[in-house]
């Protein structure tokens, strides 16, 4: 799991390795992240996830070995 920008600073992590017991939906994994890292909580509703470098919705199924990136609202330009 990759973190960037404000979530990288708030969690103090750039990456987090998570081994899944079984394939799970993105939303479930994000909820679990928030439970363990409450600093993410205020951003939960504005999070977008990317799996293997493509945006996905929260029902998307993640398998072991997939790369999940947690994307807060983007502000390039």
């Amino acid at each position, binding site marked *: 799991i*990759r973190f*960037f*920008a*404000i979530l*990288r600073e708030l969690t103090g992590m750039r990456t987090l390795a998570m081994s899944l017991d079984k394939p799970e939906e993105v939303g479930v994994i994000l909820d679990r992240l928030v439970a363990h890292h409450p600093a993410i909580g205020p951003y939960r509703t*504005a999070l*977008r996830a*990317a*799996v293997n*470098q*493509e*945006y*996905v*919705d929260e*029902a*998307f199924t993640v398998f072991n070995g997939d790369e999940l*990136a947690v*994307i*807060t*609202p*983007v*502000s*390039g*330009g």
Partner: protein
Amino acid sequence: MEERIHVDCGPAALAVVDAVAFVADERAGGIAVFAGTTRRYTDDLETVELKYEAFEQMAVSEMRKLAVAAVEEYSLVKAYVAHRVGRVAFGETSVLIAVSSAHRDEAFKACRVLIDQVKTQVPIWKKEVYADGSEEWVKGSVPVLRGRKS
């Protein structure tokens, strides 16, 4: 298609002359360029510099998708999309778009759509650094899902 698109996301300074050299083409009647530059003053707040962070590989991939779509939709001859990461001092260019097309209408529309999309769809984040030393991540936009994976 590939040789008609240039995409970049990295720490190197961006120069309009490079973008124009890439998109210039004898089939093109017009070139439109947009350069986003760091403002020193926003109202009364003095910005010393901006810092950009990106999920670089994905940013390149997303910018390429946007450029491919724009080339197709607007019948562009060529398209150049680049975003800088790391520190960008005021007056320097953080994002640079250039497109060439047979007619100017398509060039303007494509250039505008590309900069709007780069700002709202690509995993890049901007932090403002103020003269008093404080820093702040800029509020952004939630990328839109476009009928991709679910």
